[in-house]
């Protein structure tokens, strides 16, 4: 049902994407291709349009101009649930658990509705994801009793339950201690190793540097740098955007 990308073709093609809210242009003519299996870092100061961009990719917002093509299919106008079924999953900047459910049940939602043709029974599948994420012991816990780092991990686990081709992590490490950051980062890197393409939004620069194969920096809705992590960090405009002039 889902068309698969030809080898070498980008998994995600974003072309001239523009999104404005009233008179404010949050995204201005963004074009970028993301390769299959790539670990892609997305940085930029607050309000630069990072979250708007991933909202346009995941379907929470619709752009005014431009297109989003995933696996060769134009998904610009699709509602979020159909994108999830095609393999786009995301975590939220502020965790949004299904709080009346247990951790396991949170994952079951994705397995029930988005993951098609799972080899294992759903509960086993959910448990194996939780084990990966180091949350197995919390499977039966109500999700509103989790700590901050557990909530972050559950966000990622729930996104994994969609069995994504593309995982978008929106500041999964914000507010965590440095050992917790390493923990979550290791998880993301290990997911990247199994052919899941990952877009990571992050403010913690060491994490971005360690994680990304390519980094894109946004400022005021425009791409100001795109390339290898150290090139982007060395870029004058990037430093200006972050530090001010």
């Amino acid at each position, binding site marked *: 049902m889902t068309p698969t990308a030809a080898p070498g073709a980008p998994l995600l093609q974003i072309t001239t994407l523009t999104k404005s809210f009233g008179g404010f242009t949050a995204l201005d003519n963004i074009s970028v291709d993301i390769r299959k299996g790539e670990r892609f870092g997305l940085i930029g100061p607050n309000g630069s349009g990072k979250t708007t961009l991933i909202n346009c990719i*995941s*379907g929470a917002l619709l752009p005014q101009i431009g297109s989003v093509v995933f696996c060769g299919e134009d998904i610009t106008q699709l509602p*979020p*649930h159909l994108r*999830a079924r095609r393999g786009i999953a995301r975590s939220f900047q502020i965790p*949004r658990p299904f709080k009346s459910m247990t951790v396991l049940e949170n994952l079951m*939602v994705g397995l029930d*509705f*988005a993951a098609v043709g799972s080899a294992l029974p759903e509960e086993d599948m959910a448990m194996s994801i939780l084990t990966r994420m180091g949350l197995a012991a919390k499977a039966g816990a109500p999700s509103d009793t989790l700590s901050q780092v557990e909530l972050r991990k559950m966000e990622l686990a729930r996104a994994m339950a*969609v069995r994504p081709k593309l995982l978008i992590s929106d500041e999964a490490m914000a507010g965590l201690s440095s050992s917790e950051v390493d923990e979550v980062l290791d998880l993301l890197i290990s997911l990247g190793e199994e052919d899941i393409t990952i877009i990571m939004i992050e403010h913690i620069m060491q994490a971005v540097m360690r994680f990304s194969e390519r980094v894109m920096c946004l400022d005021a809705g425009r791409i100001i740098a795109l390339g290898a992590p150290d090139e982007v960090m060395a870029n004058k405009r990037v430093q200006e955007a972050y530090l001010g002039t």
Partner: protein
Amino acid sequence: MSNRRHNIAFWAGVAVFLVAVLAMTQIVRNEYPFFAGYVILQFIALAVAWSILGGYAGYVNFGTNAFFGVGVYTAVALFKATGAPLVVQIAAAAVVGMLLGFAVGLLTLRMRGIFFSIATIAVAIIIETFVMNWRFVGGAAGIQLQRPAVMAPFDSYVKMLFFVQAILVVIAVAVARYIQNSRIGRGLQALRDDELAAECTGVPTLKLKLVACMISGALISAAGAPAAMYLQYADPSSAFNLSYSVSALAMSLIGGTAHWIGPVLGAILLGSTQQLLSVTISSEVNVLVLGIMLVLFVVGAPKGIIGLLRPRYRLRAGGKP
């Protein structure tokens, strides 16, 4: 599997209930218990049906009276036009209720929270106004109805209606229970908790809300259909009375909405208290009692009766019958 055991237990319970109701209609001679019991059964059906959208999906529908009145008037119009038997009246009411649920859902389910609730009140007022100006079914003055002959094995029409309403309760409960344990139930629970997160996890939220609204609407209209024959009379201001909305909502909240048994318990508790008070004191006290109970439960037991019985009950809502 334990699932199968639960199923057997449930349907055995249903069978016992229906046999008991049937036996009661054959043994008890006094008509009053049936007259009062009918109202309680009607409220169980309404509360359970309401909770499919209002409880599982968290969309507080204030238009129960719209669906109820549409059920009543579908039965009235059909009976007057063709003399159709009760079963046909109920089935037609369910179909019309479902169509109304689809239309109302399509128009209002994109609104959230209080805006949705207000829109459903508006729907009730619009339909009531329409019926008030519909001469064929008596307009604002209402219409008298002559009950047809009662069918065997019943010796009075009220007893038969009591049994019919018991069947409607069983249908409503069985449907609610099925939804609760199915994928639809999990999806509704997810969208109640967080609609955007549910969408992004693959839940077709608009479709599920529409389905819940249609099923809830069909069941409410079906439960309302026999009311015309019960009263032998129908008029718009009682058929579309806002008290149906308030009662269905209060009973569900008092019972607890995480499990189908909640609205059942709430309706039994509140419905029988109201019946008792109407006889012993006055029917005016009902509103007061409803209000006081609602306040007490909102403050003391926000998860309703089932929340009191098992504090973390809501967590098990997904998988248990």
